[in-house]
């Protein structure tokens, strides 16, 4: 049984997992859907009530029926490397590839349907609340007056993208940023805006979950750190990520979150306040983890490899539209 990894060639975080699978002599095929058609080829037939499909890349040929798991890491858009790339060819290629993979009994990390839903930050906030995780007061609005009223109630605010996406043309980054008290909110009318009460944090927390396993890492915020440096991704801190225990209440909430979301993998961001409370910020369903492993020494890549290599659970395999909700764990 083979592990299939969908990601781009530059993804060295995936390398960490491939190396672990190699160490365990677990068959693995890695490909980028961007290379379909071309270096990646596929074929599948639905005849006499059965499906048989094959994938090929780099001289490797794998039966789709022989896939034990599929890890969607950092795949390129299907057919985007094709000689005559087009939106139409991308759609055709994506439907062929992912449609066939959905026809298999392989376990997913994460299922595309679960992943798509899990990317919606407003949904994340709602689910986190339902799971009992503390969520900072948040407003998403296109009403300037609503933003002004919110700022009156919560004077110390940050703004962040609703989607987490970074604008291109030209390429820009939009870090989570502090909003000045006298800010003019008129431009809120020109795009949905996410405002959130700033958590005065003493540490950032990254909680990486792989199946049932949790790896919490903590990065201390220096007492004299610039309070305008809100986003740990862009902060100049020299502190390292260090392993930390997960409070039992947080662990329980996170387990419920993953189960409800149908996720096998999730990288949660929390802000730890002065009282030690972990405030939920977001859950990245395909979050990076290499940087945490490198600094904390936590064996996250090995855990991912273990999950991908695990045998399928006994009994009949559900493969309907809701299967992913049960397959996350």
């Amino acid at each position, binding site marked *: 049984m083979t592990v299939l990894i969908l990601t781009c060639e530059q993804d*060295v975080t995936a390398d960490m997992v491939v190396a672990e699978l190699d160490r365990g002599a677990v068959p693995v095929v890695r490909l980028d859907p961007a290379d379909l058609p071309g270096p990646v080829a596929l074929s599948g037939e639905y005849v006499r009530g059965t499906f048989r499909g094959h994938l090929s890349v780099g001289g490797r040929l794998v039966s789709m029926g022989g896939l034990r798991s599929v890890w969607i890491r950092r795949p390129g*858009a299907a057919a985007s490397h094709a000689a005559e790339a087009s939106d139409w060819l991308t759609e055709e290629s994506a439907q062929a590839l992912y449609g066939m993979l959905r026809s298999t009994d392989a376990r997913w990390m994460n299922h595309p349907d679960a992943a798509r839903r899990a990317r919606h930050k407003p949904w994340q906030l709602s689910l986190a609340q339902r799971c009992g995780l503390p969520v900072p007061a948040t407003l998403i609005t296109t009403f300037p007056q609503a933003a002004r009223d919110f700022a009156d109630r919560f004077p110390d605010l940050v703004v962040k993208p609703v989607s987490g996406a970074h604008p291109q043309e*030209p390429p820009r980054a*939009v*870090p989570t940023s502090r909003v000045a008290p006298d800010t003019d909110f008129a431009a809120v009318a020109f795009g949905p805006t996410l405002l959130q009460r700033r958590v005065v944090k003493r540490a950032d927390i990254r909680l990486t979950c792989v199946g049932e396993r949790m790896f919490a890492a903590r990065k201390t915020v220096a007492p004299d750190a610039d309070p305008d440096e809100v986003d740990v991704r862009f902060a100049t801190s020299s502190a390292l990520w260090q392993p930390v225990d997960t409070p039992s209440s947080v662990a329980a909430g996170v387990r419920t979150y993953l189960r409800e979301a149908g996720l096998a993998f999730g990288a949660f961001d929390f802000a730890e306040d002065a009282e030690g409370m972990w405030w939920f910020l977001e859950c*990245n369903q395909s979050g990076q983890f290499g940087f945490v492993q490198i600094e904390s020494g936590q064996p996250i890549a090995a855990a991912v490899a273990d999950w991908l290599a695990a045998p399928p659970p006994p009994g009949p395999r559900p493969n309907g539209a809701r299967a992913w909700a049960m397959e996350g764990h």
Partner: protein
Amino acid sequence: MRPFALNYARPAQQLEVSAPYAYDSRLQLNVFPDGRLAAHDYAVLRELGSTTSTAGSKTHFDD
């Protein structure tokens, strides 16, 4: 007409620094010219920011 959040945008840090390793389709891994695996050289990965939460943000936003 610029959305509010874009008032806080900054030029993206170009991570186009040439990596000292390349993908080997036979191994399905990135390797240095001397054959060492890139994934095992944490010092280089840290220096390049190859595994950080902003790597790959151009096309993926699951940081």
